[in-house]
């Protein structure tokens, strides 16, 4: 196997799921566009079964093939439509259209064409609906150039176009206009609502849905109204009725399969079920977590699923009961907490839903759990100022968790510092201390003193604030026996430096020194006496990040400044060791080695530099890591050190580096090639579908694989023999029954064909014996030699076999004769 030469950036989670409406397959799988991929989930177990990749850009449409429910069409911005066999995850065909595809619709009534929305050539921001003829020519990659324009002036969003019952008409909305095109009559009707601007927004159309059995169109508006249009055959006598519950934009609409009820969802994150299209009968499913982006129904009407803006899928029963939720990396509006690794579960911890902390498992791409920090009802409404989590820190063993939440207010920010204790019994974090207004202004950084070997009472928390001080918090034992808990946290020391804002804080590896940066200056404090030891300053620019070196480099302090300098100070000599001109956005030390990763942002591309503090030259540079700005990075320790051949990538041995980009996609660096990473999982999936992986099954799988390897290595002989046998058996099995002679005649031939020739085996044995003897004469054989000898033996067996086909040995003939003589008449009795 050839060692891969380069590191690859691999996307491993957090892709937006709301590119297009999700689709339920006939056998209860859910298919969903996720970034450049199409993902298949099991509705029963919430697990990701398959990831189908092949598109080069965002997937914009996912539709089942109306003529074969085991196939799936997907469209992408890269201008191609792919037809998939989603059960096996195989792309069957790729049709290249050419221009960007913004939406995809497949109809049962149109035999071999699908409808796509493409930008009109030559004009900006105008789009048209075209039907694409999918040629039935052989081959995988096909050109689909037969386009016919159906409708002009449609909107880019796939929600703003819908096909009526049995594909008789197509309805599209844009701004305040609704247009309906009838295919048979080739008639285009245009309707419009008068534009009104109110406080809650305008009444532009936002989404559309068509009744499955009747001639009725439902449209959603930006002011929260839903209009039901009827009688739209004629331009003049159309009617509409209005349903109004949403106070904000209606994001999506869906009719039930029979059309008796209508589902609507919006920013409020409430799913509303309207019965019989009347205003008075409605049911609600409130508090779904975040704004609803798409609603889709399963074809049997038993399930409904909502896609949310935070990349979550909620599956809902037909009686409006919450059933399941598929959640990967929850996308929050702003990841203020940074990427933190939970030392206990090795999960990635960051902002989840508003006010929650999500624990994201990197291995399974699933959310482990979500910890409610703010513990207040979140109101889904634009323009509200609600408390959110801004800082998180774990103690070394994950026993304590400190969180800071704040509510931005014009006059004074509302701050709370909370300390959580991990309760072994309930296996979750329990609130221990709540401190109101720990600082007078925003908290900029927070860290625990990480000391593994020392007792609990040495645990110290340091918070740095914009109010020009840093505070040290310690645990205090409560002397009152009636108090519920034995320890609580209180402030021990307040430090400041020349009335500068404290921006970062960091403990050295052994916990003896605390570095706090105050704007342009880094101050180093003794963590026992809280004396100021020394200060470092390297103008110009304010300090953006600081960190101590680890292990052999623990005498260095690294700092990155605003003006694009990376400085390394020696703590022993209190002098600048080296500095480099680099605009560092993220500075992340590896907890298990001396390496430090710095991500810089230079002219619209992010670059990664890995270096050791003791030498100014980076160990590894990767330019153009990704096009998006990298916000955060984290080293996650590996369970077991990986063997990496190249010396260049040695820094990836103990831990893995993860990045979070602006668009909240999680990326990592991998030395393995794409195939290597994908194949084992897909193989496993192909074999086991959604069976849970038990230790037993793993063991069995290993055993089987070993067997197959052995087969490949040793059993060429057997394999060949089967090939030899096959013509007779094939003839027997494939000839039509009425042509075949009687069974009594065929039986001996068949049985003969199954026999394994004795002579062959004996020859092999002889060979073996010979080998054994030769081995005895030599010293104990090592494995390699064994293998080569085996190969030799194989070839000899092959030769033997070749001879055998032309003439049978005497013993074999004797055997055959014996068999022929035998009476097989008893078989014919059956």
């Amino acid at each position: 196997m050839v060692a891969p030469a380069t590191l690859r950036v691999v996307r491993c989670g957090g892709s937006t799921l709301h590119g297009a409406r999700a689709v339920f397959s006939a056998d209860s799988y859910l298919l969903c566009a996720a970034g450049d991929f199409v993902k298949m989930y099991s509705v029963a177990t919430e697990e990701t079964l398959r990831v189908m990749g092949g598109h080069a850009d965002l997937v914009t449409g996912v539709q089942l093939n109306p003529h074969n429910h085991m196939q799936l069409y997907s469209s992408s911005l890269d201008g191609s439509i792919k037809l998939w066999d989603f059960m096996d995850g195989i792309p069957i065909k790729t049709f290249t259209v050419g221009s960007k595809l913004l939406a995809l619709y497949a109809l049962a009534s149109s035999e071999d064409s699908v409808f796509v929305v493409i930008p009109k050539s030559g004009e900006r921001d105008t789009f048209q609906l075209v039907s694409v003829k999918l040629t039935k020519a052989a081959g995988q990659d096909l050109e689909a150039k037969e386009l016919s324009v159906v409708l002009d002036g449609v909107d880019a969003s796939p929600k703003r176009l819908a096909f009526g019952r049995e594909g008789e008409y197509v309805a599209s909305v844009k701004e305040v206009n609704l247009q309906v095109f009838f295919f048979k009559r080739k008639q285009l009707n245009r309707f419009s609502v008068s534009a009104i601007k109110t406080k809650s927004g305008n009444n532009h159309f936002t989404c559309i849905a068509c009744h499955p059995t009747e001639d009725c169109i439902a449209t959603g508006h930006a002011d929260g109204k839903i209009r039901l249009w009827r009688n739209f055959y004629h331009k003049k006598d159309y009617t509409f009725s209005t349903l109004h519950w949403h106070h904000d934009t209606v994001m999506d609409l869906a009719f039930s399969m029979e059309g008796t009820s209508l589902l609507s969802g919006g920013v409020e994150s409430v799913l509303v079920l309207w019965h019989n299209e009347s205003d008075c009968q409605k049911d609600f499913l409130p508090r779904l977590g975040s704004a609803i982006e798409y609603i889709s129904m399963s074809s049997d009407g038993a399930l409904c699923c909502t896609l949310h803006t935070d990349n979550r899928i909620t599956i809902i029963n037909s009686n409006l009961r919450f059933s399941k939720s598929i959640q990967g990396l929850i996308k929050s509006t702003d990841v203020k907490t940074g990427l933190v690794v939970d030392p206990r579960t090795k999960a990635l911890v960051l902002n989840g839903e508003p006010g929650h902390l999500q624990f994201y498992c990197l291995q399974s791409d699933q959310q482990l759990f979500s910890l409610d920090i703010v513990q207040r009802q979140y109101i889904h409404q634009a323009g509200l100022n609600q408390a959110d989590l801004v800082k998180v820190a774990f103690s070394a063993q994950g026993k304590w968790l400190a969180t800071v939440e704040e509510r931005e207010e014009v006059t004074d920010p509302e701050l709370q510092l909370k300390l959580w204790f991990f309760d072994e019994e309930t296996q979750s974090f329990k609130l221990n201390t709540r401190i109101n207004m720990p600082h007078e202004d925003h908290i900029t950084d927070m860290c625990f003193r990480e000391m593994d070997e020392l007792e609990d009472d040495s645990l110290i928390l340091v918070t740095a604030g914009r109010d020009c001080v840093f505070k040290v918090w310690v645990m205090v034992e409560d002397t009152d026996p009636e108090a519920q808990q034995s320890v609580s946290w209180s402030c021990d020391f307040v430090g400041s430096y020349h009335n500068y804002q404290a921006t970062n804080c960091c403990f050295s590896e052994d916990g003896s020194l605390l570095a706090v940066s105050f704007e342009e200056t880094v101050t180093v404090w003794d963590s026992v006496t809280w004396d100021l030891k020394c200060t470092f300053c390297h103008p110009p620019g304010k300090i953006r990040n600081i960190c101590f070196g680890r292990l052999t480099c623990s005498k260095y302090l690294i700092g990155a400044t605003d003006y694009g300098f990376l400085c390394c100070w020696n703590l022993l000599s209190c002098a600048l060791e080296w500095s480099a001109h680099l605009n560092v956005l993220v500075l992340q030390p590896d907890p298990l080695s001396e390496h430090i990763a710095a991500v810089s942002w230079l002219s619209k591309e992010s670059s990664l530099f890995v270096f050791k503090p003791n030498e100014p030259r980076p160990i590894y540079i990767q330019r153009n890591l990704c096009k998006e700005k990298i916000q955060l990075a984290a080293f996650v320790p590996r369970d077991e050190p990986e063997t990496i051949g190249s010396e260049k990538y040695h820094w990836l041995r103990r831990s893995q580096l993860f990045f979070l980009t602006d668009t909240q996609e999680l990326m990592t660096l991998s030395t393995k090639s794409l195939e290597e990473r994908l194949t084992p999982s897909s193989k496993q999936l192909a074999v086991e579908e959604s069976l849970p992986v038990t230790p037993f099954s793993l063991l069995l799988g290993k055993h089987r694989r070993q067997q197959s390897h052995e087969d490949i290595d040793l059993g060429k002989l057997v394999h060949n023999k089967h090939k030899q046998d096959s013509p007779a058996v094939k003839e027997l099995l494939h000839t039509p029954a009425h042509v075949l002679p009687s069974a009594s005649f065929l039986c001996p031939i068949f049985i003969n064909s199954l026999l394994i020739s004795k002579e062959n085996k004996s020859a092999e044995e002889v060979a073996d014996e010979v080998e054994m003897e030769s081995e005895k004469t030599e010293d104990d054989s090592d494995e390699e030699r064994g293998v080569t000898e085996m190969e030799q033996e194989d070839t000899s067996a092959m030769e033997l076999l070749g001879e055998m086909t032309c003439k049978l040995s005497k013993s074999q003939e004797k055997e055959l004769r014996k068999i022929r003589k035998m009476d097989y008449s008893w078989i014919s009795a059956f």
Partner: protein
Amino acid sequence: MATYKPVVVQAFPKLGERITKDTAYWRGYKTPVQIKEFGAINKIDFSPVPPYNYAVTASSRIHIYGRYSQEPIKTFSRFKDAAYCATYRDDGNLLVAGSEEGSIHLFDVSGRAPLRQFDGHTKPVHVVGFLSDKYRVFSGGDDYSSNLWDIASATEIASYSEHTDYVRCGCASKVNADVFITGSYDHTVKLFDARTKSSVMTIEHGQPVESVLLFPSGGLLVSAGGRYVKVWDVLKGGQLLVSLKNHHKTVTCLCLNSSGQRLLSGSLDRHVKIYSTTSYKVVHSFNYATSILSLALSPEDETIVVGMTNGVLSVKHKKPEERKEKSQKKRQPAYRTYVKGRTYMPKQEDFCVSKPVKRVLRKYDKLLKSFQSSKALDAVLEPPIRLYTPEVTVAVMQELHRRGTLRSALAGRDEKQINLLLTFVARRVIEPRFTPVLVTVADMITDIYQPVVGQSAIVDRQFLRLQEAIGKEIDYQEELLEVLGMMDTLFATFTEKRATYLEENKSNGLTETIETNMNN
């Protein structure tokens, strides 16, 4: 899917003293009854037998009060000058008192004229008492002597003149009938045995001794003098156990409670401090209007009587025990409904289906859940919530503010409701825990109802009251800032001093070297 999260009502840690068993116990007294005497009260003594009358010595009289009487039930006023230290005998029948002219009078409690008179002291006698055999009386006088008298013959048995200053306090041992102690202004406490000719033990207190006390076991001695209360182990030859310095003026009187678990001390600094006799820590303290001279606790701690320099006697009675049986029992459900389903024990193979626990939401939470802001605000302005749990009201106001609906919830109210709101705000806005929220509320109310000012007298008055409250608070804060400024300057000088002190040391060292040089 998340369920509705109720409004978080912030619990604030209670500042100030923590409620312990002791504070609860010592707070269980009614408001004091004040009785005016003619002069400074130098001694209060409870009769050891029921009905526990007490003798109060003030000026030239001894008043005997009944348990609940405001007026003296008996008065001994046969003194030419001031009387001192009227003390009951163990059986409560006899009373002995010293006097300014140096004579000691013995009274029968039921009689009026003195039964005996012991003459021998040449100066005023400030301390007298019975020995525990009931037949002898000890005394201490300003002539520096401590004497022992026989009651039957009215003669002096012994006289010890070992003190070198006024003898002002004393106490007899309850265990040994021959032992008594006296404390004097010569800073010593002396232990006398009637069988010997001189004192058995001398304890150096360090300050003029104002009061002494022996524990019922006789093993421990408590002396008070100056600002100190000191406890001595008599059996170990007068070893100091603890020295307590909790008063900031002279401690004048000591007293033990009936169980012997608590020690009380009264002082000229107007405080009575209560110590635990196991840990010798202050567990509670009382304040009084003026300096305290005498203090007594009735048996079973029924009454605390304190005498002060201005002649006011303060009597505190214990509140009657609250009866807890009063809480009426809820009517038990009928047997049949009560037992239904309870007796069935699930078998091993049974699958138990538990009902989902229904969460009970408070009224305001229900209204907030359905986004009815105005009604939710109405719900928390109901009297019980508004008066007893204002933090709930404020929490809901904060929640409404967070949701951006506070303004609409406050708007559109009639005169009565505005009055209610403003009363609440004006009363609570100065509490630091509510201030941030209520300032916003007050701001919004004034904003919304500005156009209608002047239309209703009630509302106008409330607005004025709010203004007054805020004005007062601002003045108060300013004063606090001033104090803070003063303290800052104090602290600044404090740190400087330390620095100069160090410098002084250095200079001292220098001068020393110079001196040695000069010597050379």
